[in-house]
């Protein structure tokens, strides 16, 4: 339990092998997002935020199924994935508050979380942008003779973007070690999936690209991990890409300005009954890993840790003006200090 309070993203990632830590991380994601919402109301957050409360099972299920040197591309709704992969609460909250303690030093903001040490490329604010990039990461893995895989996490809205179809096609033709993970939370921004997508299951689109397409209960972190393990193993064996569709739900609207009034009555309540944290806590109880009252004490502990991280963030300064020009190109103030993934 102490590991996840570490400041090292890599140590936090490794700690995910532990069942209780998996539960703890899901709770952490939930509470960090709640705190971000509050920080927004308190005026510490600029622009927008895209919360993913309700999708914690997907984040933790993916993170525990891949290695830290596998590459992940992800969307702007990536707080949960970043935390699951190992970013610290201070690194995430700090970035969203624009402070130097943030994972990108405060110049990225909520939509651009990054941590090369755990394979997280800068999360993209453009729908579908991560899919072709993951294909390239997979191409590089193979060219460099490694068995690393790339994971592209995207939403159901991305499945209608050209990049989705082009990337699945390209990955299939090249037999690339990439796993396409669609988080189908039923809404592309403000629009319900039936209004934008003529199929109910994104996974069936895999058939057009001659790859496995599987549908997963995204509220169950174990089922997520199981499906991911199969797809990742296939990719590592050199058998090519898979499309894994996580059926999940975001409890809030698209972004902070969206009250999600477009949702049919009762839909949210039905999903809240299948909350990923509750499902996982019940399982751990059945496995006798979680004692009576264990969930509550875990929640108390995590809430305190998130408050500590928040205080740390609010104590952290804004970036210096020199950061504006510091990393534009090799000719800029920061010079060339690149870290090439997998360069060894």
């Amino acid at each position: 339990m102490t590991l996840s309070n570490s400041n090292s993203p890599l140590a936090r990632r490794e700690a995910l092998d532990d069942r209780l830590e998996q539960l703890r991380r899901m709770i952490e994601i939930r509470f960090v997002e709640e705190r971000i919402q509050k920080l927004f109301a308190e005026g510490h957050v600029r622009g927008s935020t895209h919360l993913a409360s309700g999708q914690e099972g997907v984040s933790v299920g993916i993170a525990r199924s891949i290695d830290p040197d596998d590459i992940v591309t992800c969307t702007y709704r990536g707080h949960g994935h970043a935390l699951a992969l190992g970013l610290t609460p201070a690194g995430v909250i700090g970035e969203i508050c624009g402070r130097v303690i943030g994972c990108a030093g405060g110049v990225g903001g909520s939509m651009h979380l990054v941590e090369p040490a755990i394979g997280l490329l800068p999360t993209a604010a453009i729908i579908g942008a991560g899919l072709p990039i993951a294909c390239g990461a997979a191409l590089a893995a193979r060219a460099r003779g490694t068995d690393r895989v790339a994971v592209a996490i995207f939403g159901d809205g991305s499945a209608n973007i050209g990049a989705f179809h082009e990337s699945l096609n390209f990955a299939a033709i090249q037999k690339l070690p990439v796993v396409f993970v669609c988080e189908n939370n039923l809404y592309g921004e403000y629009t319900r999936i039936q209004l934008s997508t003529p199929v109910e299951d994104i996974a069936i689109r895999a058939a057009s690209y001659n790859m496995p397409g599987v549908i997963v209960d995204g509220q169950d972190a174990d089922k997520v991990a199981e499906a991911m393990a199969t797809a990742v193993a296939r990719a590592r064996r050199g058998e090519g890409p898979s499309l894994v569709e996580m059926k999940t739900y975001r409890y809030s609207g698209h972004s902070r300005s969206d009250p999600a009034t477009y949702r049919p009555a009762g839909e949210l309540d039905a999903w809240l009954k299948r909350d990923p944290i509750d499902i996982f806590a019940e399982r751990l109880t059945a496995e006798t890993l979680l004692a009576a009252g264990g969930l509550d004490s875990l929640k108390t502990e995590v809430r305190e840790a998130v408050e500590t991280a928040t205080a740390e963030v609010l104590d952290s300064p804004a970036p210096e003006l020199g950061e504006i020009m510091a990393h534009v190109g090799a000719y800029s103030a920061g010079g060339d200090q690149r870290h090439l993934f997998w360069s060894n």
Partner: protein
Amino acid sequence: MTEDPTVIMMGEDIAAAGGPFKVTEGLLAVHGPQRVIDTPISEMAFMGAAVGAAVCGLKPIVEMMFIEFIGVALDQLTTQAATMRYLSRGKLTTPLVVRASAGAGQGFGCQHSQMLDHWFRGTPGLKVCVTSNARTTYGLLRSAIEDPDPVVVLEPRILYAEREEYEFDSSYRISLGRAEIVKAGKDATLLACGAMVRVAKEAAENSSADIEVIDMLTLWPWDRDTIMESVSRTGRLVTLEEATAGNGWGAEVVSSVAVEAFGSLKAPPHRITLPDAPVPYSGKLEARFLPSAAYVAEQVSALVSTNKTPMPWWRNAA
């Protein structure tokens, strides 16, 4: 590619077919299909894959065939690759080269005849080069491949049909961001790039004025020092651009010179550009649309002799 196994190429019809302009002919036989990759007609997929591969330790060269095709993949270059270094605070870079044919003069019509350098110059994080012959293409490409940042190398497609002797020296480089003085002169500095360099040279040879011709080579970041030095010597600046007046690189150069070297100017800076219109198809129209050596000589001579900027041809044409 022979020296560095991390260099790969991707593009449409570049491998088996050798490219529509035969720019990549023979590479497949030498380097194999893992390194010289024929892609589907999916610019977004392979441009994005090149971004991902670059971040993960390869040095991809993307061949865009006609630069206009990059429109459907622009996000990957201008929004993803160009911000990778910035968003990771220097920890990640994308050593990516995008090469494409560009420019007018061959009757390809308006959707296959543009330079479009302004799309890339307008994006912090990208470097932009335009080659002007076999030597500069080799020198710039070598530097671009070795550069840690995304570099767009535009190759004037009108020059693909030209032939010249060039003995390759594998250590030869042209540093990105450096311009070259092609012909020295003392009455005016004439800046050009790409296919316009030979127009500028011919104009200078046929002019009564003594014109210094400079090949820009890199449009961003551009060689401020060489150009300021030249203008401070000649006292006059003319930019010759295969770009529309409203979007050309000369606007940035002229404004910088006007601000930083105002005192040394004997005449207002002058820009010779294309009119703000798509490239016409008809041979007669296209020939008039592009600045000819005679027109450039006339414009520069008028500036030197009167110290006033002459009107572009299309102002009088109507």
